[in-house]
Every structure is written in C-alpha cells, then in structure tokens.
C-alpha cells in the first residue's frame, strides 16, 4: 500500500531521511521509533505528501510522489488520517465542527455527515462533548477529537506523530487501546514515537527504528 523507493529527503539543517526503502501493507500496525530529529516525522510527512523526496519516490496506493500534481494531493489526504502531538484542532469551532470539517471538504451530504460524526464521536467516547470547544476539553479528550477527525473519513492509513507527547500515562494507554481497535477494523496505523513503552501494548506490531535519517533496524 505504501512503498518508499530509495527515498532521500533533507531540508534545512535537519537531517531528514536518506536512502529509505520500505513497504507497508494494508492493515499493518507500525511503530517508527528513534530519537528526536532521527527522521520519524519526515517519514510521515512524505506519506501525506507534505514533503517530496529529493531522490527516489514514495507511492501510496495510486499516488506517486514523482508524478502527482499539486491539485491531486487533497484527494490523497482524504484517504490518510493524521493525528499530531499538538492535536491541530480549531479552537473557534466545537467538537462536532472540527470533526465534520473532514467530511465537508469531501463534499458529503449533511445527513451523512451528521450520522458519521455522531458515530465516530461515540466510538472514541466523546458523545457527551459534541458541542464543547477544544479549550473546554482535557488533553486526552482533545487527542480523541483529533482521532475522531482522522477516522471519520474512513482512511486507509492513520498516521500518528508523537500522539502521546502531551498526554499522561493513563491517557496514553487509553489512546493506544483506541489505535489498536482502529487497526483491528482494518485501517493501517503508523505511529512515530520516541516513547518505547508504547510498543509492547500492541501485539504483532512492526517496529522500524530510524537513526540519523536511516532505517537501522526492522522487526
């Protein structure tokens, strides 16, 4: 589903990634680990085409980084869910509006949007917080809104960049349970983290270790 062909991508003074060859299948759960600046986020940004390789190419289903036109990138992103350490929620919109935004951009009908948003919010345990604004929620709840926003469009892959970075251990554990459940429903999940304690919580997860932009170990 996702294939890196000898990909190198450096930007500014940061290392980025070098000569990456990697293949991720549908329904896989993958941890990308490494120290800060090792290239974990660069790998994820290459997948949702926020960055483009200087050498090699990344292919996500039928989107090829060497051929894709700028106008096609939104259509790739509608198939890829993303969650971040800082949640990236819109503070001036309530939970419902934050989650529904993903569907409005894909031109869904209002009735279907309402149905899907309520379903996904119940799924992540936020059915009672629909009209709250992000500022009125705890860190864990905000991260669940971000998950709901990523999940509501039924992505083929969910990317999580340091998703537990701002969460306490109990909430982190809850988040990992959520991600495992999502993966069991068939969505591939790729988690970039330097928190190694998360790895044992997911059975059969694949581990990719990166260091200074290169894959040093896969298991």
């Amino acid at each position: 589903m996702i294939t890196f062909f000898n990909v190198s991508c450096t930007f500014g003074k940061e290392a980025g990634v070098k000569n990456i060859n990697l293949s991720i299948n549908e329904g896989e759960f993958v941890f990308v680990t490494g120290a800060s600046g090792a290239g974990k986020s660069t790998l994820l940004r290459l997948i949702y085409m926020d960055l483009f390789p200087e050498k090699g190419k990344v292919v996500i289903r039928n989107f090829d980084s060497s051929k894709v036109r700028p106008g096609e990138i939104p259509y790739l992103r509608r198939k890829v869910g993303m969650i971040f350490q800082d949640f990236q929620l819109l503070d001036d919109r309530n939970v419902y509006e934050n989650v529904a935004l993903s569907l409005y951009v894909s031109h869904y009908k209002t009735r279907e949007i309402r149905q899907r948003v309520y379903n996904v919010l119940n799924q992540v345990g936020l059915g009672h917080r629909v009209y709250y604004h992000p500022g009125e929620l705890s860190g864990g709840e905000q991260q669940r809104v971000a998950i709901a926003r990523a999940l509501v469009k039924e992505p083929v892959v969910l990317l999580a960049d340091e998703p537990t970075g701002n969460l306490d251990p109990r909430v982190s554990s809850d988040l990992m349970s959520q991600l495992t459940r999502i993966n069991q429903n068939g969505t591939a999940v790729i988690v970039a983290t330097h928190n190694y304690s998360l790895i044992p919580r997911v059975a059969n997860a694949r581990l990719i270790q990166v260091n200074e932009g290169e894959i040093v170990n896969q298991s």
Partner: protein
Amino acid sequence: MIVLWFLIKEGFRGLWRSNYAGAFSIIIIALSLILIGFGYVAARDTLVMVENIRSQFDITVFVQRDAGIDELENFARELGAIKEIDKIIYVSADSAAAQFRTEFGADIFSILDYNPLPPSFTVNLKPVARNLAGVEEVVARIKRQAVVDEIRYRKNFLQLLEKYQRLIFITVVLAFVILTLISIILASNSIKMTIFSRRNVISTMKLVGATNNFIRVPFLIEGALEGLAGALLAAIVIALSFYFLNNYLQGLTGFRAIVSYRFYGGLIVLGSLIGLIGSLRAIRRFLE
C-alpha cells in the same frame, strides 16, 4: 449545494471571527472609498461647471453694413442649415446701439453723430461642436458667405478651457485609478493580517484534504463582505457629510452636492470588488 452553503456560512463566520483585524480592514476600505467618493463628486462637479462655462460660448458674425433684407434672410437660412448650430440671434445696428447704451451708459449717436456698429448674428453651437475643432469648422463654413464682414470668437478662451478640461479629466481618472489601487493594496494587506491570524485554519483544512478552492472561497466571501461593510460605512459618512453641507453650510460655500442612488450603488460595488480582489491577493500567498 451543501458545500456552497457551507462555504458561504464559513465566509460570514470568518467575518465574525476576524474581530479587530476584520474591523481594521473595514475601516481601511471605508476611508479609501470616502476619498474616492468625495474625489469623484468634486471632479464631476468641476467638469459640469466647465461644461456650463463652455455652453455660454458664442460666435459673433458681423455682416456687411449695406446688406439688404433678402441677403440677411438668405444668410440666416444658410446658418440654420448648419447642423452644428443650435441657436441664432440677429442683432441689428439699432439693437447694437441700444446694447451699447445699456452696457456703457452713453449714446453712440451723441459721441460720433452716426452709428458705426454693424448688424451681426450671435451664433450658439450644439454641445457636440463646442470645441476648438468644431468651432473652427463652423467658422470656415460661415466665412464662405459673401455677406460676412468679420467673425469674432474667443479662441484663446476655448483653447484654455480645453486644456484645463483635459487636465482635470486626466487628473480625475489617474486619481481614481491610483486611489483604487492603493485601496486594493491596503485592503489586501489588512486582509492578509486577518488571514495570517487564522493560518492554522488553512493548515488544518489542507491536512484534512481541502482543495485550494475550498479554502479560498470563504476568505473571498469574507473579503467581499468586508468591502461591502466598508462601502456602507463610507456611503453613510458621505451621505451625512453632503446632508450637513447642503443644509447648514451651503450659505458659506455656495456649493450644493447632489448624488444619486447610482453613486451609492457604484460605491458598494466598488467596495465589494476591492475586498474581493484584496482577499484574492492575500490568500494566494498562503496557498502556494
């Protein structure tokens, strides 16, 4: 349809969310439109005044003193056949003497013992011919008549009028274009600030798969609404200023400003366009 409704709603909500930055944009657009509005009325009234002066322009055709009635009637008919001529007034030698008495308070007969003033025709032209080229063409045609002795008109006055009218016209057009461009640049800079304060909305929309058009449309609607609000504010200020000027200061200035609903309509269209173009320029940077 649902998406369009969503985008329109987003545009209105954007205006509400933009807070002080939005209010600043509205004020900038309003100030620019007030300048443009006052400038337009002043220039329009100056041009009307110049046109009024021009309408008073006439040509005096002196005819041979010994011309008979038939010759004068024929000549009057010839003048009437020139389509650029609007009005002809015949001034006989006696009428000229009476006019002299009225203007100078002295009887020409008591000074010279005879009337040296020749009979003449005062010729007024239609507006289309009240320019140097038109006047000279008519004069050349009149000159061909044998009964004509001399033709007088204020050529220098006409040249001066044309020169200044052209100057006023060019100044007005240039000022209008420059002020509109400045308004667009100022509006787009202040709208840029509004958009910059909400760049997280743009990056989040990009992340969830919004196309550039989907992101752009609400900001364009918001820009047009800011332009519209600025134009309404400008229209209120201009209307109140003219009301005050016409009702309380007319005695002092001798000036009466009259503007039609079309003027206010134009102001509103121009304001919306300034907001729209300003936001189009501003959003472009964030979508690159």
